[in-house]
């Protein structure tokens, strides 16, 4: 990690370290060490979600930049101002449940920076407040830092179709010729009363690249690309494309067509909650 941070710094790139699981009771020392080590190794900011860990970092490393993780689900200006006041938070990663108008309104009421997801998965639930994964698999983002872990995924054939299962529950069924989406509960195919379909969300990824001008106008400081549990090729392609779009926007040019469709979940994309009709 020390070498990686030095390499990044040598290329004028900052390194923010996400320590955004919720420390396990009785074992908090592990998380405290992660905070201390990241500071010692030169991290430019810590991305935190847990109140206790924020308090620890604020107390021990008051001069190190603290960002509020999306896992803290700070969804309104009062909450953001609370974190800024209590823990000196300098930037907040916004949950994926807000419209662009709401983001603009939040930015008018706060003093810290905001960062918005522009590409990656689409969490349809308030992040850091979702136990769907642990209900079915025993492991959750909050407890384990994972959602729908691969160890609990199984694929089986049934009547010529490919069925995807998570924790023993059948989540999807597709023709053998179609791509099978990764089975997360919130993108699953279910029945609810007379409704049969994707009750929560289609298996689509978030691509907000076309909204870069609107996000910039709304006062967003940084765009976030989801990189966790992703390959180097994925991250490289996503970053290159979005960098070009941002540079185009900064130069007064159109941001251009998104070239990222092939990287998205189920090879389809949505602008998610950024459009109000999504709700």
């Amino acid at each position: 990690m020390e070498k990686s941070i030095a390499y990044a710094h040598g290329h004028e790139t900052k390194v923010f370290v996400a320590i955004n699981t919720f420390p396990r009771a009785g074992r908090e020392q592990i998380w405290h060490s992660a905070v201390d080590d990241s500071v010692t190794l030169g991290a430019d900011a810590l991305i935190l979600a847990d109140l206790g860990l924020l308090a620890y970092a604020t107390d021990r490393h008051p001069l190190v930049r603290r960002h509020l993780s999306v896992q803290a689900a700070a969804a309104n200006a009062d909450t953001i101002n609370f974190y800024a006041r209590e823990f000196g938070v300098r930037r907040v990663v916004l949950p994926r449940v807000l419209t662009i108008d709401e983001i603009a309104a939040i930015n008018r009421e706060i003093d810290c920076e905001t960062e918005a997801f522009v590409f990656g998965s689409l969490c349809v639930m308030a992040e850091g407040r979702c136990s769907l994964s642990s209900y079915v698999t025993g492991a959750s983002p909050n407890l384990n830092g994972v959602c729908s872990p691969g160890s609990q995924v199984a694929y089986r054939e049934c009547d010529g179709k490919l069925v995807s299962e998570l924790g023993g529950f059948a989540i999807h069924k597709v023709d053998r010729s179609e791509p099978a989406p990764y089975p997360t509960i919130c993108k699953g195919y279910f029945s609810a009363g007379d409704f049969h379909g994707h009750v929560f969300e289609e298996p689509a990824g978030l691509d907000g690249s076309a909204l870069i001008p609107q996000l910039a106008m709304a006062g967003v400081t940084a765009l976030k690309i989801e990189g966790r549990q992703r390959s180097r090729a994925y991250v490289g392609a996503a970053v290159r494309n979005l960098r070009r779009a941002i540079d185009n926007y900064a130069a007064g040019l159109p941001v251009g067509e998104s070239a990222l469709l092939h990287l998205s979940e189920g090879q389809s994309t949505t602008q998610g909650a950024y459009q109000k009709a999504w709700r």
Partner: protein
Amino acid sequence: MILPQRVSLSIGPVLFNWPAQRWSDFYARLADEAPVDSIYVGEVVCSKRLPYYLDAIAGAVDRLQRAGKTVVLSTLALVTLPRERRDCADMVRTDGCEIEVNDISALAYLTGGQNFRVGPYINVYNESTLRYLADFGATSVCLPPELPLASVAAIAAEARNLHLDCEIWAFGRIPLAISGRCYHARVDGLTKDSCQFGCSRDHDGLGVQTLDGKDILALNGVQTMSHSYCNLIDDVDRVADTGITTLRLSPHTCDMVAIAQTFRDRLDGKIGAEEATACVSEICGDVPFSNGYLFGRSGVEMIRKSP
């Protein structure tokens, strides 16, 4: 056998969209008959529902207080709209009732030194977070339902040191997620802003089944819940051993007075585990139960105690 300490019972807020009359009748009966100490009142799930029973709240609170119950007002779990922020701020500053905070924004509205309770929608996963909230004025905490027993025990021990009550989700469908999007509206082909209150059809939530017909979840507007009812009736002794001070029973349309009486009798040692378990099953009818989270397993699982 009498269990080592007196564990109290609470009734959580009604999470479903009940008609105002059902809502009022429910609290009237709790006031008269339920052997519980604390009762939580208020709209936690969707601010659009509140106008339909807002006028009934003062009457319910008054009746419960006259019956000697401690009444706690619960805040909304996901506060985003300007109107929701104003309502939450007003509620936190209301005199006469304790407040249960279910969204961090409510902390921002508290005046210095004001006491409050921490609801199950606030992420209290460890002792440091509990200490932070205690410093801020918290007097009790209801732990997130996904915590395993080891975490429950560690946090309950810290709560005892800090003189906080520590509550655990012991009965009822488990709140698993909250969203900006309304899923009742979605299955009706509508959106949250244009919803026709489809959630009012389902007084215990709308069951969700997988492709092969297995029950998995339940929809409750913007909230997603477990299909199974969490049920710790068979685990009350091990939960009491951790130092948990209160068991929370979450309202359903089944006979909640009978559910509370069964938990009370079991806690008092008046009935054994087997009888209590059978009692709860009979009261609830044909619903699956779960307690897997307590054992660090999938929440959906039901782990039977070895004989």
